[in-house]
């Protein structure tokens, strides 16, 4: 029998999965101001689809928060989310073995890609104006960078936009560290279970 909390989990996970494509579309469109403006000026879009999209985006944000916390807290929930995302359930031991192999390969591939991205983020292109000489250097480690404060006038109100002082490199490094530490922690916990 399902407990009340697992019912909530199931509903919120479904909301997250169903609203995710919509949320990604909204986020993608927001990168193109002309497209976004023309959509909002459309007679049908603004009064009908606008509130629906806004509601979906709000639901996505709240469900994302829930999914993030629940994924960190519960291992069983993590597995269920993964099954819902990849749309596949392991039906027997052979499929569990195949999933394990796929996960292992996947972590190695993403780790290699993350390391490549990490190297790329430390790259820098330099060009001397007078001599027109250029060079590419790598290994410029900057863990934090001072992002410029953007000042905008929105609806007659002066808005100052601050960004996190984390550099791209430190974000990629953080992802790699999370990946490696979670892999080793889960492996260690599973090994302890088998002892």
């Amino acid at each position, binding site marked *: 029998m399902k407990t009340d909390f697992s019912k909530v989990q199931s509903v919120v996970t479904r909301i997250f999965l169903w609203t995710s494509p919509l949320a990604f579309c909204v986020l993608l469109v927001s990168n193109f101001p002309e497209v976004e403006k023309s959509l909002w000026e459309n007679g049908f879009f603004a009064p009908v689809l606008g509130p629906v999209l806004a509601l979906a985006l709000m639901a996505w944000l709240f469900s994302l928060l829930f999914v993030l916390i629940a994924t960190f807290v519960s291992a069983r929930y993590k597995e269920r989310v993964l099954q819902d995302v990849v749309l596949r359930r392991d*039906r*027997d*031991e*052979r*499929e569990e073995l195949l999933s394990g192999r796929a996960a292992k390969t996947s972590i190695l591939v993403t780790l290699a890609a993350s390391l490549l991205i990490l190297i790329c983020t430390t790259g820098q292109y330099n060009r001397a104006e007078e001599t027109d000489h250029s060079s590419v250097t790598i290994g410029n480690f900057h863990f934090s960078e001072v992002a410029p404060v953007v000042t905008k006038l929105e609806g007659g109100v002066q808005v100052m936009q601050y960004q996190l002082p984390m550099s791209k490199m430190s974000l990629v490094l953080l992802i790699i560290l999370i990946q490696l530490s979670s892999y080793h922690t889960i492996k260690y916990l599973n090994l302890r279970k088998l002892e």
Partner: protein
Amino acid sequence: MPRIERKLEINNRIQELRNHKGLTQQDLAEAVDVTRATIIALEKGSYNPSLELAFRIAKVFKVGIETLFFV
């Protein structure tokens, strides 16, 4: 000279015993609670089952595990 580890080839009589008992692959799969694909992989020898599954299959055929699997 380095020792070369060779994978132990484990054979089985699953197909033979299944045919003898008049069971389909689906019947056997349902009896031991796995998918038909797993039974196919077992019969082809491309997948070695866990000890638990090996005992479950042996129980269906009412034979010992050593009769079912051999090297």
